[in-house]
């Protein structure tokens, strides 16, 4: 069924109906297959074609078409698995696509979130696992209809930053509880933290009070840091120096790493007392 059929031929075909019907179905199937393949090719760079065809040639044994297909299938499945390491992966669904956003902080792999998109005009989010305090609607309003890539990259930024801040706060609570003199106060978005701490837990000094505000929701370091010390000798230079240096440290390094350096200094002090 290569050419366009003339009306006379159509009449003849109608008379041969059942067989013609089958042939027509087969032709339609093939045409639809060609169209899909072309869309896939057009939508992706030439390199994807090569990747799809990438099969290790088995020189020793001649492979049947079935085996070639199976090997291709295995390769494609493996590569699809690997996409989660780019931070964005997904699966096609009957409605559209379900995108999975993976988050990480300094090499630590953290929570994943998904966004299930429905392909309709307009494009819409069917459901998702994004926390309520992430401005998903705002980001969707800006980008979803015009640029899916930008929408997802932007959402990635917010989620990765939130994950990172949460990770730092969790590590502070779990690993450095000994240095905290009170509970860590935090909001769900983990962009406002308030805590009190001492460098020498057993000592006589007053604790420091720290308040960290992360105004930029796409960042994992605070924008505003206030450290206060309300001991009686608060005005002495050594306390003032410490207080000021702590403020700088919190701005420059992740929270749990600042406390790790406090803990190390504490160990050094102990050693000097012993000797």
């Amino acid at each position, binding site marked *: 069924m290569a050419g366009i*059929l003339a009306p006379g031929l159509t009449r003849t075909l109608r008379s041969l109906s059942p067989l013609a019907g089958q042939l*027509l179905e087969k032709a339609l199937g093939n045409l639809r297959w060609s169209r899909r393949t*072309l869309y896939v090719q057009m*939508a992706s760079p030439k390199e*994807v074609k090569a990747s799809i065809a990438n099969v290790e040639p088995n020189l020793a044994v001649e492979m049947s078409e079935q085996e070639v*297909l199976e090997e291709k299938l295995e390769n494609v499945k493996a590569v699809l698995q690997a996409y989660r390491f780019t931070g964005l992966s*997904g699966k096609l669904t009957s409605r559209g696509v379900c995108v999975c956003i993976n988050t990480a902080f300094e090499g630590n792999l953290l929570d994943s979130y998904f966004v299930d998109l429905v392909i309709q005009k307009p494009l819409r989010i069917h459901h998702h696992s994004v926390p309520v305090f992430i401005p998903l609607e705002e980001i969707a309003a800006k980008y979803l209809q015009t640029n899916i890539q930008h929408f997802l990259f932007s959402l990635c930024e917010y989620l990765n930053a939130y994950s990172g801040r949460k990770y730092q706060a969790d590590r502070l609570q779990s690993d450095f509880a000994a240095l905290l003199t009170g509970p860590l106060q935090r909001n769900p978005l983990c962009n406002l933290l308030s805590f009190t701490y001492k460098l020498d837990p057993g000592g006589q000094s007053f604790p420091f009070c720290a308040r960290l505000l992360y105004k930029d929701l796409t960042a994992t370091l605070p924008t505003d840091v206030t450290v206060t010390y309300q001991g009686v000798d608060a005005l002495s230079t050594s306390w003032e120096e410490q207080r000021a240096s702590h403020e700088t440290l919190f701005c420059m390094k992740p929270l749990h790493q600042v406390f790790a350096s406090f803990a190390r200094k504490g160990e050094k002090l102990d050693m000097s007392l012993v000797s």
Partner: protein
Amino acid sequence: MDAELAEVRALQAEIAALRRACEDPPAPWEETSRVQKSFQAIHQFNSEGWKSSKDLKSQLGHLESELSFLSTLTGINIRNYSKQTEDLTGTEMTEKSIRKVLQRHRLSGNCHMVTFQLEFQILEIQNKERLSSAVTDLNIIMEPTECSELSEFVSRAEERKDLFMFFRSLHFFVEWFEYRKRTFKHFKEKYPDAVHLSEGPSSPSIVIRSASQPGPGAGQEQSHRNRSSQLPNPARSAWNRSCSGKPDKIASCRAERLVPKQ
């Protein structure tokens, strides 16, 4: 019968148009609309074939569509991936219900003309409270190796063991590299005497020297790196316009304005 024949004709026309479209490679700034288009198209065909058989060919077709979508979305084309797992749980750990597994991953692929090969290790530790997963080693090999701008963020990613940052930065770097290349190429073609590119269109900087109006000292050159803040005012706005990447905007720049007045 008639409806099906009509569909045959429609499909044939569509296929002919698609074949023509496949000939021309898209420019980087067209990629975003390409993501939208491919998204719609791939979904359309998958919903068609959704109820169809589970045979190998249609399975492969479905997964290939998925791969194509992810490749377009992330800008990254992964070609090969393999993984090995090693259980490091000792007998002591099993008693305390701690499990330690080391995964070794290897993947390779490309992002337009840049190819990469990654080898990294992930250590998974499962104890009673939680499962922690961390990248413990990351090695990245890039090609082309001469591009110093590329190696900057590659070493940062390796240091921080930040896989996601590497892929995101690679995608943006390549996109903007292409923009810059096309911009420089356009200027070179339009003003061949005034524009000098030390390393061809892939140069990191562009030198603009007027042949007819030399600078205050004889033979003095005005070298402009790809940073608009270093250009004199009229040139800066022209440069900003050209960096938007739209060919019609680039065409409106004039070389005479790029040379500062004496």
